[in-house]
């Protein structure tokens, strides 16, 4: 039910430098800290699971290791049944862009039956270039690229009905730096 975005707060208050520590305190090595951090993480996650009410914030500290976590205010339940469609989803490559349908209608990749498609995967496009058609109530609405780039993928088949806002083309945007590369593997 709850959608949470975990924001780790990097606010470890560890301004202490070893030289300030009394001589009796051991220097904790990276390996040790890693292990301890693993345990802290384990306990923090387990603790949250134990709670009947989800917390808003949690801070755990064990010696040199501390972990702080905060949750965004919970928002609605929202059973989304529709394709979100319009905007690129958070976390996706910022250079990835979608051309969406401006109307409910039928999508055509070809200017007319038997002709070559307006555009194919891998092709470069310039802003304003027509890449397809939406037919709505016998009206032919041209689909144009709104930015320069390269067509990564054609997401609908020729003649397929589409809704308003549905994604038609994935476009790798030609950024200022001049790269128009496919979405990197990590996205």
């Amino acid at each position, binding site marked *: 039910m709850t959608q949470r975005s975990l924001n780790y707060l990097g606010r470890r208050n560890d301004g202490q430098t070893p030289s300030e520590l009394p001589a009796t305190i051991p220097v904790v090595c990276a390996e040790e800290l890693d292990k301890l951090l693993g345990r802290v993480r384990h306990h923090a996650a387990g603790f949250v699971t134990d709670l009947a009410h989800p917390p808003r914030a949690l801070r755990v500290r064990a010696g040199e290791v501390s972990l702080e976590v905060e949750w965004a205010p919970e*928002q*609605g*339940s*929202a*059973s*989304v*049944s*529709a*394709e*979100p*469609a*319009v905007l690129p989803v958070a976390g996706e490559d910022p250079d990835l862009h979608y051309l969406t349908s401006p*109307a*409910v*209608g*039928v999508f055509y990749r070809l200017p007319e039956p038997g002709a070559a498609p307006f555009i194919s995967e891998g092709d470069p496009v310039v802003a304003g270039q027509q890449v397809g058609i939406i037919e*709505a*109530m016998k*009206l032919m609405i041209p689909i144009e690229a709104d930015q320069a780039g390269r067509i990564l993928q054609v997401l609908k088949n020729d003649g397929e*009905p589409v*809704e*308003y*806002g*549905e994604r038609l083309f994935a476009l790798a945007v030609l950024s200022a730096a001049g790269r128009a590369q496919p979405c990197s593997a990590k996205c």
Partner: protein
Amino acid sequence: MFSKVLIANRGEIALRVARACRELGIQVVAVYSTEDRDSAVVSYADQAIQIGPAPAKRSYLNIPAIVEAALHTGAEAIHPGYGFLSEDPDFAEVCRDHGIAFVGPPPEVIAQLGDKSAARRLMTEAGLPIIPGSLTPTRSVEEARQIAEDIGYPVVIKANAGGGGRGMRMAHEATAFLRAYQQTKTDAQALFGDSLVYVERYLTSARHIEIQVLADDFGTTIHLGERDCSVQRRHQKLVEESPAPRMPPGLAARMGQAAVRGAQAAGYLGAGTFEFLLSSTGEFFFLEANCRIQVEHPVTEMVTGVDLVQEQFRIAAGEPITLCQDDIGLRGSAIECRINAENPDRDFVPTPGTLAEFTAPGGPFVRVDTHGFPGYRIPASYDSLLAKLIVWAPTREQALNRMDRALAEFRVRGPGVHSTHSFLREVIRNPVFRSGDHNTTIVEQLLRLDNVPGAA
């Protein structure tokens, strides 16, 4: 019967229609704007098509998008609900041209009844009493002023393409006429794209009584009794009930027969409403005919037992009405309150926002029609109707007590969100309303009282 229907609406009425479809075994196609993606009817429907962005002009008023959606999904009929395209003759015609059944009367009937002067002429011919005034749109301010003089002040100037309380202004005396006339013309142009207006006598202390009719393709036209919709704020109905209280014997039947005559004269088909003004002396006058299912249709359903939306589908599918006039009897008393997401303390300004809590009343003889749910975000783009609360009881007094109890059970809460349910409780508890001796000015009077310092 149809096997698949598209619902060209949103909010509670879309859900209401979807429920009727389910009960008739009809598959439901919902259409929605980007703003209504998470709405109740979208999750309820068998299929849902996004037809446009938030502004209604590009979504719920977007004829090509809706017709395309119907064609692609194979919907055999479109139910337009109320508002939006429900009384647009062009839409009805486009549907017909594409072989889609429009759940409502034919475009010609919608056009004629939508032209308010034409409707007045037609009803006069059918023998219905109309309010004294012009039978055609006035051609000049001089003509209009002369008519006003002839029928006597106060008068009301109305948009010819208007209806539902929108596009009308009063002139209480001759000196106020010009300004009211011109302002109505400006409003009419802005609201309906048509600056034609006409002039009518304004009835003070009248009640708003309307008659529900059903007409099929086999020549049967019946009425399902009256609804009293006198509790209005700025011509918007807040509380409706059936039967109307304190009606002289036989009057409701006479009004019903008049409505049937009017419907027959118009060649009406489907469910429709004939609105009348009832003067304090017991005379009734035809006001306008509405070619849609009304917001307040549930009160008629509760006292007659007839599911009006199901009847709409039967008639649109070419089936005969299964009822005859003698089958219809009003049993008990039903009242509806419209719960709007508005702030009564700030002049009923709409308060969109997300519902942190939303609990509707329940229990004996309580019906709630709502698209609200906990977590629902009320968009700012559309009207503020959040729920209709309907109760039934054997008598009006018991129904009022039941409504009072049910309103008290409502829980609507969310950041910035207000609701009118507490204000409606004041109305329900108001002695004048309880006596049934009220008219269309009751809300105004109540609000004035509220603002008097020291008043309860």
